[in-house]
């Protein structure tokens, strides 16, 4: 498929990633190249997928007892956060996010 500049801007918004307008043409070209490369997967016939296919990851996931087992931390949120006060992470006003 053909990737356009508007699609790049849309995906960047979804990803909460500021993209400079002057970078959009280059990003569009790079994304187009990557998408064209991965499109060779379309050759695969999905209907002919092996029935006993193994899935990695979830298969290895172990269920554990639902108990809290705190790990010792040498520093806390107040040391790590860019802005933190009285037990709260400080952020700017919600702005456009509040309307969604």
């Amino acid at each position, binding site marked *: 498929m053909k990737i356009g500049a508007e699609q790049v801007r849309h995906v960047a918004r979804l990803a909460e*990633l500021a993209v400079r307008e002057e970078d959009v043409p280059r990003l569009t070209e790079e994304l187009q190249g990557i998408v064209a490369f991965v499109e060779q997967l379309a050759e695969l016939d999905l209907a002919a997928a*092996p029935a006993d296919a193994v899935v990695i990851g979830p298969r290895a996931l172990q269920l554990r007892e639902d108990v809290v087992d705190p790990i010792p931390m040498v520093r806390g949120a107040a040391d790590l956060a860019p802005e933190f006060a009285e037990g709260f992470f400080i952020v700017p006003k919600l702005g456009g*996010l509040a309307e969604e």
Partner: protein
Amino acid sequence: MSAATLAAETARRLREAASLNATLAWSEEALEAEAALAESVPAGPLSGQAVAIKDNIVTTVLPTTCGSRILEGYRSPYDATAVRRIRAAGGIIAAKTNLDEFAMGSSTENSAYGRVRHPLDPERVPGGSSGGSAALVAAGVVRSALGSETGGSVRQPAAFCGITGIKPSYGRVSRFGLVAFGSSLDCISTFGVTVEAAATLLAAVSGHDPLDATSRAVAPLELPAHRDDLAGLVIGIPEEYFPEDLDAGVRAGCDRVIARITELGATVRRVSLPNTRYAVPAYYIVNPAEAAANLARYDGVRYGVRRIGPEGDVRALYRATRGEGFGPEVRRRILVGTFALSAGYADQYYGQAQAARQRIIADFAAVFASGVDLIFSPTTPTPAFRAGEKTADPVQMYLADIFTAPACLAGIPAMSIPVGRSEGLPIGGQLTAPDMGEASMIAAARVLEAAIDPAAEVR
């Protein structure tokens, strides 16, 4: 050697290797503290050894940046399980090593803190993304180091630098404290100056960890007994890993190994892994999709650096922090991953990539079920390339992972050992084993290591 002497010696070597740009953090004070700690634990398999740690594995004393501006100065509140296990085995932590930003890359050119130099030729790359760890081991600063693999980030730099790199089975080593990148792929993996050094470190950090839900409930890896030869083994040679355009030096190096495998008593069998060509395209959907999800946590609120955009609201905070904090390759993968998961495209791209992944898993399963014990192939299509050679075209850089991505997609163990040199540059040979088959793979690698001169020119 006392731990204090080891610490002082390690500091001296790190200073001498500074021109490699292989480290992101180390200090004499931290080394002295490590030495004091090592004196207090019983002697173990890593006693007398300093181990370097890729900077996407968290430590409380030294900062963890993942090679990114977005984590500049970040200090973790806890140590990774692998780090704690190194100390419990008697080892000391030498340094945090340079990497491609968030482990995204195959050359260590994507680090926000400058590229790592190849120890044999500063104009070339050491591979990546664990290039700093590989360079320190190859330069003789440490005997072993931790890296991480998502698509080949330990085996590929091991091959480029002429050392051993082992990627274990998925879940063999706890990922508690490994900064998440591609969660269905990521494995802490090890480098060593020898097979023994890499295997000893792997055994020390392996084993079940209740702090990682994907850690397998099995006992730590036990190093296999020594074997004199490869008698009784069937070694598969996959035709898809020897394409027409394979580098002539890599081919010559691997052909020499195949001849030795026969002389050492194993049966060589030609096999096929027909879906190999889909591995890199499938990987470059699955990996960015998982990366886009995992990297959503860098929002400028809870930790890391913060930037606030012109609108001054919380969304401007997210966008500016991420837009300025992430480098070009990370931004690229987040965009590709977000695209591949977005409405209308998820089935076409992500669904198709998962289907390809299942074929690749089934390919390996069929070969191992047919009586093949181990698979031998080149680790990389070429020896170390020049810095800047592949940076203009992301897809060309991605193809550096062509022989390493399949084992990551399948979750099975694989390792690279040095098998010779072509025009002075190291060549890596790769052994791949079935799930949890590390012990027999390591035993065979030791035999090959003893039978092959890695410094010999093969062309």
